[in-house]
């Protein structure tokens, strides 16, 4: 029996050693030049499994499409790898992934992290390593703007979508000016995204004199009956910044069940026509429906061919955009350094200089001069029609 233990140990150790010998990470990250003709790696840090897995998978498919179509046009050979940050395990997992990608000398840029919490946890590491990280969906305000004296982002963090400091007030102003609300219930889910958005909306509404009630639900809540009960009968809107469209649907249905007149107003996280379709509800998003943009027709058709049976969501196109920006920055760095990148910082330096016409989300893409956010970004508000489609209303 002891021999069996010895054998078992030997087997385990062998497999561990064999596997670690497989991929050689033996090279230090010290500045070794990277030839632009070799295969450059981009890592996408996003939740691929877990409660927000649908987000990561959607973003991943668009990023893959971008790499596949745009990289050859730019004369680059790009390999896209993924790092999985399931939301159930908290942001700490993003830190070990950051270490992994920093140590890989072929990685010249990072897409993501997609969740605000993961950005906060890993941005220092990327910044110190000089790796540009461009997120398509981390919208927490304090990642690019100082809030209450604290800035949690770093100069290496960029995002191609506007932050909650735009979404919050813009949603609130829509409610005040277009919907003429008197009483609003605001919910948060005790995680970074919803907290930031809920706070922003609450502040703007309060300043305008609207009566607000704030509720807080644990992230694991599935049954909102008790919260629905707490919605006053005369409330106009329930602001519901969830990242799970299915929960928005449930909440709206339970409101109807209890005969409450309030309508659900979701943030960009609830944007999914296949899951959230109770008529009369509102959804805000950082992009209009790109199927309505003429310049994107070919792009959408190509993506659909690669992803049969999947619908064009709202989280995917910004990932395409982020990948486009990153690859453009890499290209600029290669040109500026005559085909040999001295270090990743070369790419980082070029990011802010990127400008893209025919931006996938419409118009031209330009960086704001004051922060690492897009210039003149705005949020769009949709209302769900009786047939379940989303109509642009603001």
């Amino acid at each position, binding site marked *: 029996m*002891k*021999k*069996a*233990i010895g*054998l*078992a*140990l*030997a*087997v*385990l*150790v*062998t*497999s*561990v050693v*064999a*596997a*670690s010998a*497989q*991929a050689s*990470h*033996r*090279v*230090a*990250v010290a500045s070794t030049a990277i030839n632009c003709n070799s295969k450059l790696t981009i890592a996408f840090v996003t939740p*691929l*499994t*877990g409660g927000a897995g649908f987000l990561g998978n959607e973003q991943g498919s668009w990023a893959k499409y971008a790499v596949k179509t745009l990289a050859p046009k730019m004369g680059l050979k790009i390999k896209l790898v993924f790092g*999985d940050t*399931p939301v*159930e*395990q*908290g*942001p*700490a997992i993003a*830190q*070990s992934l*950051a*270490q*992994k990608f*920093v*140590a*890989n000398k072929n990685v010249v840029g990072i897409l993501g992290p997609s969740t605000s*919490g993961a950005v*906060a*946890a890993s941005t*220092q*590491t*990327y*910044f*110190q*390593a*000089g*790796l540009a990280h461009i997120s398509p969906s981390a919208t927490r305000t304090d990642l690019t703007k100082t809030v209450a004296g604290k800035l949690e982002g770093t100069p290496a963090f960029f995002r191609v979508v506007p932050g909650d400091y735009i979404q919050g007030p813009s949603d609130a102003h829509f409610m005040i000016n277009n919907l003429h609300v008197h009483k609003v219930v605001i919910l948060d889910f*005790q*995680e*970074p995204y919803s*907290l930031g958005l809920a706070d922003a909306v609450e502040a703007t509404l309060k300043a305008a004199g609207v009566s607000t009630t704030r509720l*807080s639900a*644990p*992230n694991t809540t599935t049954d909102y009956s008790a919260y629905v009960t707490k919605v006053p009968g005369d409330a106009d809107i329930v602001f519901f910044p969830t990242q799970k469209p299915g929960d928005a649907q449930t909440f709206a249905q339970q409101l109807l069940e209890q005969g409450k007149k309030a309508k659900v107003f979701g943030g960009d996280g609830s944007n999914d026509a296949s899951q959230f379709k109770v008529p009369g509800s509102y959804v805000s998003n950082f992009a209009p429906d790109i199927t309505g943009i003429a310049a994107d027709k070919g792009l959408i058709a190509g993506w659909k061919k690669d992803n049969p049976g999947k619908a064009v969501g709202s989280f995917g196109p910004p990932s395409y955009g982020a990948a486009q920006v990153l690859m453009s920055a890499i290209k600029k760095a290669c040109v500026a350094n005559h085909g040999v990148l001295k270090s990743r910082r070369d790419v980082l330096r070029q990011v802010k200089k990127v400008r893209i016409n025919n931006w996938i989300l419409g118009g031209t893409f330009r960086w704001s001069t004051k922060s690492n956010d897009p210039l003149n970004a705005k949020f769009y508000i949709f209302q769900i029609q009786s047939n379940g489609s989303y109509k642009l209303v603001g």
Partner: protein
Amino acid sequence: MSDSTPHGSQIPAEGPAVGQDEWVARHAERRLLRQGPLGQLQERLSRVPWWASLVLFVAALSLLPAVESSGYVRRVAFDTVLYMLLALGLNVVVGWGGLLDLGYVAFYGIGAYAYALLDSDKFGVHFPTIVSVPLVVVIGAVVGFLLGLPSRRLTGDYLAIVTLFFLQLFQTLMTNGDSAFGHNLTGGPNGILNVDPFHLFGHSLVVQHQGVFSVSYYYVAIAFFVLVFVALRFVNRSRTGRAWRSLREDPLAAESMGMPVNWLKLMSFSFGAATAAFTGTLFAALNASVFPLTFYFVLLITVYTMVILGGSGSQAGVVAGALIISPLLEMLRDTDKSRVIFYVALVGGVALAFRFSRLLGIVAGATLAFGFAVHEVARAFDHSWVAGEKASGFPGVTAHWVVVPAKLATWIPPTTYIGLIAATLVLTMVRGRLRLVLLVPTLYLAAFVWENVMLAKPEPARFIILGLILIALMILRPNGLLGERRVEIV
């Protein structure tokens, strides 16, 4: 480190001499001696003093950064040392005290949060490390003691539940702590950021240099490990340790012998909690942040698997358990490496099961032939059935052996997965020839499921492996690798 193996004594060289009392008297000892050259080697090894093994082990660990300069590998090594510390602490509660503490990682979290609160911008206090770390250890011990208080009268199952609820309580408190009576105490789900690094001997330990993990924390972790290992060993060899052992084996008898059973339980809770809190400070300082979700069920199961695999009750065992599981988990995250691990484990497992007999050759050959045959048939049917993506790293053999379709129909993963589970369960029920015959397609199915289903989603896949290891361990070898076989007297 078990004391139960007797030291070999001189065997009379003349051989058995019937009637000699001494020879008869020593018969039992001789039976326990290991035979053969491998056995003699093991005998020699077991006589090596524990501190020598420890020194050698620590030396090997410390040499790692010299061999590997990748920040990532060093970071994984650091995490492994942290897990070793956690495993040592859990060993005190489960292995020595015999108490099933399912709230153990809450103490880890308490240590991390306490350090974060004492050494960050949260409340503006910045205690020197030399003050805050011992303070956190004391806090951990006190909380462990307090948790132990209501649990004194509870038996095994109930204790497990109460501690599990304590974990849930901790999680809820930390997550909602950002609006406790209007004050932001714990940062809620956003956690506490910008936690100070350690300040030792004058200068602060830089956590990362240009994004690469700084090796100084690794050495601090090793120092912590040595400290805890030695301290716990001395505790175990003392009266308290002996009392714990008797408490674990038979609480009722221990109580009737007059041992302060309640006090002993509290002590083991305290020690375990203190160790976890100690580790927590290191974790918080390195990551410069703490989030509530880190200290939850997944971490609990991971540490438990390490302790059970290594052998609860044996310090060397749990360290070995951590050494195996931690890098394994990390490597299973990467598709290429997990593929290699799977095949090595498959081949190794089969070799272990058949122990270099003729059957091994038969089974291996049959599986290979079966696989090639299926692959060729599938290819003949439709090229796209075998045209799936294969990452670099294991070309050649497996490319022609396993069927990896280009596009997987949605009904295939659930059906094959459940089919594999059913096949494995059936294998445990049949015997003899039938079992061998069924083994071949089952092995092939396992390879298919691994390649197509589990590699697609490494995160849940690695936890599935963890759960399976736990179940298999409990059924096949509950005392793990280096633990002692226990008999519960009911």
